[in-house]
């Protein structure tokens, strides 16, 4: 196994910082790796390389898309940022004006008060609208939890009771995600709602405490096609209105372009390409991105497109391929590709790829 390099000297990161200098940065991952140990006697000591040497910057008010196949490590990336698991190595830095050096560094698992204040700022929307709402509680209970836990009940005036204030906030929240009339939804249980409505409740729960960073893990992939776009529009409206920073995870390149200013393409736990949406989609430089681009349906480009075709599946992450992780499937593979991991290099300002080409 290759040890991830120390993040401080990675030139790609510092350049990315300058690209974004018009916007403030809010979150930075520096060479973050996450390895899951395999809990099996026979394979004791082996690990799954879910994430290796992942570095990127999220700007304040930016929507950054993380694109990749299943097993590429995109959900793991969101999960470690959300502090669902501790990271194996590297560091996550969250901008923090109260701290002397301007950011809070996280390299171990947070707990107690620290975790609470972290979660107040960083929230996640989960993929499965059916599995992420507790079926035994009403929507009112589910949505009031974040207000109570994070102490966000705001009374309009002295005379208003806390309970009444919470109720008012909940109704406002439901209206803002398009669930009207709110009272009708407050008394319902998750199973009484459709998939789209449940995902709206999920999004409402995430937005309720107005986090600065929202990690959206394929929030529309389990919804019907006709409602996907309205959920995407709703998230964009929220994001623009409150200037939240969004990490939008998807396997759909077109959806990523629709949502995000910049796109990070991941493959087998590593970043392959990073750049603005148009650079990544229109001028894809990495063979894997080219392949993704060519495989995605795009009838607007004519019905008889020439395509790149490749064989094989995503590699095992227990024994990832040596060198570039994409080399076994790459149509442009060279001798050195199987020997060394290519570094992230810039092809144009702010647009980097992990490839020798």
């Amino acid at each position, binding site marked *: 196994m290759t040890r991830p390099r120390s993040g401080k000297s990675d030139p790609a990161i510092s350049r990315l910082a300058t690209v974004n200098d018009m916007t403030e940065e809010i979150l930075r991952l520096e060479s973050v790796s996450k390895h899951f140990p395999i809990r099996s006697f026979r394979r004791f000591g082996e690990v799954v390389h879910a994430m290796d040497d992942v570095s990127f910057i999220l700007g304040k008010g930016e929507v950054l898309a993380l694109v990749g196949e299943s097993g590429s490590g995109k959900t793991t990336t969101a999960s470690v940022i959300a502090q669902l698991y501790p990271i194996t190595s590297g560091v996550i830095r969250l901008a923090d004006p109260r701290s002397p050096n301007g950011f809070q560094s996280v390299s171990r698992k947070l707990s107690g008060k620290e975790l609470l204040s972290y979660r107040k700022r960083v929230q996640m929307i989960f993929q499965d609208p059916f599995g992420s709402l507790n079926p035994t509680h009403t929507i009112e209970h589910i949505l009031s939890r974040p207000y109570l836990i994070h102490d966000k009940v705001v009374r309009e005036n002295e005379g208003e009771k806390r309970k009444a204030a919470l109720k008012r906030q909940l109704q406002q929240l439901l209206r803002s995600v398009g669930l009207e009339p709110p009272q009708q939804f407050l008394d319902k249980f998750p199973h009484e709602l459709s998939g789209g409505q449940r995902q709206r409740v999920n999004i409402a729960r995430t937005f309720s405490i107005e986090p600065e960073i929202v990690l959206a893990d394929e929030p529309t992939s389990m919804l019907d096609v*006709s409602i996907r776009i309205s959920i995407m529009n709703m998230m964009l409206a929220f994001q623009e209105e409150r200037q939240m920073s969004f990490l939008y995870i998807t396997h759909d390149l*077109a959806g990523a372009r629709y949502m995000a200013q910049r796109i990070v393409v991941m493959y087998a736990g590593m970043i392959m390409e990073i750049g603005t949406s148009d650079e990544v989609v229109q001028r894809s430089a990495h063979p894997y991105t080219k392949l993704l681009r060519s495989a995605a*349906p795009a009838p607007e480009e004519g019905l008889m497109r020439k395509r790149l075709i490749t064989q094989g599946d995503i590699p095992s992450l227990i024994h990832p391929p040596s060198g570039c992780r994409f080399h076994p499937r790459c149509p442009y593979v060279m001798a050195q590709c199987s020997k060394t991991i290519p570094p992230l290099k810039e092809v144009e300002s702010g647009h980097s790829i992990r490839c020798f080409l």
Partner: protein
Amino acid sequence: MKETLPESILECQDLVAGYELKAGFVRAVDGVSFALKRGEFLGIAGESGCGKTTLAYAVMRLFRDNAKIKSGKILFGGKDITHAPEEEIKKLRWEHISMVFQSAMNALNPVLQIGEQLTDGWLAHKRGEVREAKARALEVLKLVDIPEDRYNAYPHQLSGGMKQRVMIAMALMLQPEVIILDEPTTALDVVVQRTIIEKIQELRKTFRFSVIFITHDLSLLVEISDLLAIMYAGKIVEYGPASEVFYNPVHPYTRGLMASFPTLSGPIVRMGGIEGKPPDLIDPPSGCRFYPRCPDRHDGCDRDTPPLRQVRPGHFAACDGE
């Protein structure tokens, strides 16, 4: 559609099928007609619950318990099979029409080796001996690019894409004339999806079978189909050559679906999608079923059910607006 009668291999005429519930009959497929020619690729698109899977099951006569074909006809090679006895249908399945089921992950028996599952149909149809069955199975595995040594593998030893290809191999075993693919690639990644689709197209050219491809991914379907049928609430609302339907969509629902897929090129415009949700099929709205969600509805839409009318040669739409 009617003029294609003589050469069509599979035909549905005014088919009504669905599920008998306590609350009433769910008309999941309500008056669907289409004709599929030899070697043709028909794409059926629609949201979940629009009846596309029920239609496939009706054609395969895979109805059990409360599922029923109420009226209409299914013709295979000109022969009415709507109420043919089960024995006759058994001979038809796999031999003449085969199906690749949704979620290949669960469609294979986890405790049987794939070789055994592949040869099962061949042996049941008494095509020959075990040795010949194995030879044929290896042949079809090769067609879908699965190495021979996987013949004795169990499903869990294969990746999702490979399992899906095994399902396609199984559908090819007896060289049927029609293969129905029900969301064969929805659970797969785009790159794997594309390889499988290219494979199907290649095999179709070689063996000249017809395909019915069911999915909700309209943008994919437009690229791969000859004919496209858009289903909504149990009815086909638009039908025609794929490029016709894509470049000149007539029905507001088709237009709404098209506005639901972000594009990979061109300017990024905020898209609308379709407001609201599909109707209850036990008690569907009177008139056009789409009118409660339709942006272009006018007086009368809630009264009369618009029939499929020809808007351009071969292109039909069930909407009287323009």
